[in-house]
């Protein structure tokens, strides 16, 4: 039943979806990191009017499945076309590609902000006090002392999040985007050979994530040479 020739036939077809998978993952990880950083920093001031909305946003996006979020942003907001048209946002929500980017970005932004918030809090207080004592203002203390340390510490946890996002892109196939998983499902409906197709698709994600983990491990090693043995 398992036929090596069949793998050679389907793998190139699956790889045709890889650029879209990478594009979705890359764009949402980058935008999501920006969002996460803003959200984490905005919570440093501990002002309720800033913190409370962020806590609610994070609770919603961490507490609901990504699949539901993608569905709601695409099919849910699709029902409010007149309202979206009147505020000039329909061009964005009309396209499945942008709906997927928005859902993935908001999701990873919520998770990422928690990772960064924890990392910032874990930077020893003495360091920022020392920086303040040297005459740095709060902004420069954050930028020059706290953030570099925090981002370095956050890297292992954040690499986890990046991998989750790469796998999360597979859900984009439900809103008509034919990335790797979407093509896999198409191939299954043409060949009815679910096992081989999903093994091949799984292997593509495995190799992709292996490369990402290697890259991030190298980056981590570069950033923390003192930990090398």
């Amino acid at each position, binding site marked *: 039943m398992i036929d090596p020739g069949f793998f050679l036939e389907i793998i190139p077809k699956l790889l045709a979806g890889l650029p879209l998978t990478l594009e979705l993952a890359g764009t949402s990880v980058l935008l999501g990191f920006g969002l996460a950083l803003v959200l984490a920093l905005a919570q440093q001031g501990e002002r309720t009017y800033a913190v409370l909305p962020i806590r609610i946003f994070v609770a919603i996006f961490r507490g609901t499945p990504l699949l539901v979020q993608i569905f709601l942003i695409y099919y849910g907001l699709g029902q409010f076309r007149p309202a979206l048209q009147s505020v000039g946002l329909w061009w964005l929500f009309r396209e499945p590609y942008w709906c997927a980017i928005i859902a993935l970005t908001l999701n990873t932004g919520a998770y990422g902000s928690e990772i960064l918030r924890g990392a910032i809090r874990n930077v020893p207080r003495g360091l920022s006090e020392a920086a303040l004592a040297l005459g740095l203002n709060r902004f420069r203390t954050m930028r020059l002392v706290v953030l570099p340390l925090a981002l370095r510490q956050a890297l292992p946890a954040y690499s986890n999040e990046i991998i989750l996002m790469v796998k999360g892109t597979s859900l984009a196939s439900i809103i008509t985007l034919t990335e790797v998983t979407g093509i896999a*499902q198409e191939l299954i409906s043409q060949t009815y050979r679910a096992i081989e197709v999903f093994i091949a698709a799984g292997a593509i994600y495995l190799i992709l994530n292996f490369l990402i983990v290697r890259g991030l491990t190298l980056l981590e090693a570069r950033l923390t040479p003192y930990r090398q043995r």
Partner: protein
Amino acid sequence: MTFRRLAAVAATFMTLLSAPLAGAADAPKEIKIATEGAYAPWNFTNAEGKLDGLEIELANDLCARMKIKCTIVAQNWDGLIPSLTVGKFDVIMASMFITPKRLETIDFTQPYAVDPSGFAVAKNSDLGKLGISKEKFKLEDEAASKAAIEKLKPLLKGKVVGVQSGTTNLDFLKKYFADTVEIREYKTTEQHDLDLAAGRVDALFAQQTALAATLAKPEFADYTIAGPGFVGGVFGLGTGAGLRKEDKALKDMFNKAIDAAIADGTIKRISEKWVHTDVTPVK
């Protein structure tokens, strides 16, 4: 774990995966029928959460004729044929057309319905102004169907057309309209209906009876079925019940029951109730 033991485990798995399924040699007493449950009015989940529709009523009728106990379950369209072949259920009745490609993997009963496919578009669009046509083109009749397709092409140029993936409707679009329209694939027809209402797609391509059921809803008041219907060719021989190739006895039972349901007018009655037209196959 040593490599040898690992290899042994892997080998066991491979055997399990490729183990031939016990084929039912005798006539079964009890079977499980799978449908999609998302293709109104053929098969869908009604307001009470129960499966309902033309094929559900027909399945119950056929089971009563065959004097066997049937359980009807819902399964994603994508997973119907793979699940049938691995034995999750015994029969597919999900408005599935009998095509040569599907016949490579599974077997079918004789058709119990023949239903043309066509486009649904906004009434004020180029194609919509044509309005609904009772014309039916057999794709085997190449000259006539090609002329009909060429007439549609300029009216659909550059439009986005929603279609369910893994269907013969998609095969049709890819074969005849790939150079004219942008094809967008959906998991269920309910999802492309939502996107037609939202204006993300300009047209739908599906079975005309299913489109008629969608367009009967109030939010589709400005939409219409337009142009002729297409049958045959990539659409195959019509809608049949899918079975595993080894279940010969079950296939004979179904064929006899379908013959009887055609002969006594049951299929005509059920189809007029659900799709307001007679889809009984002409022998």
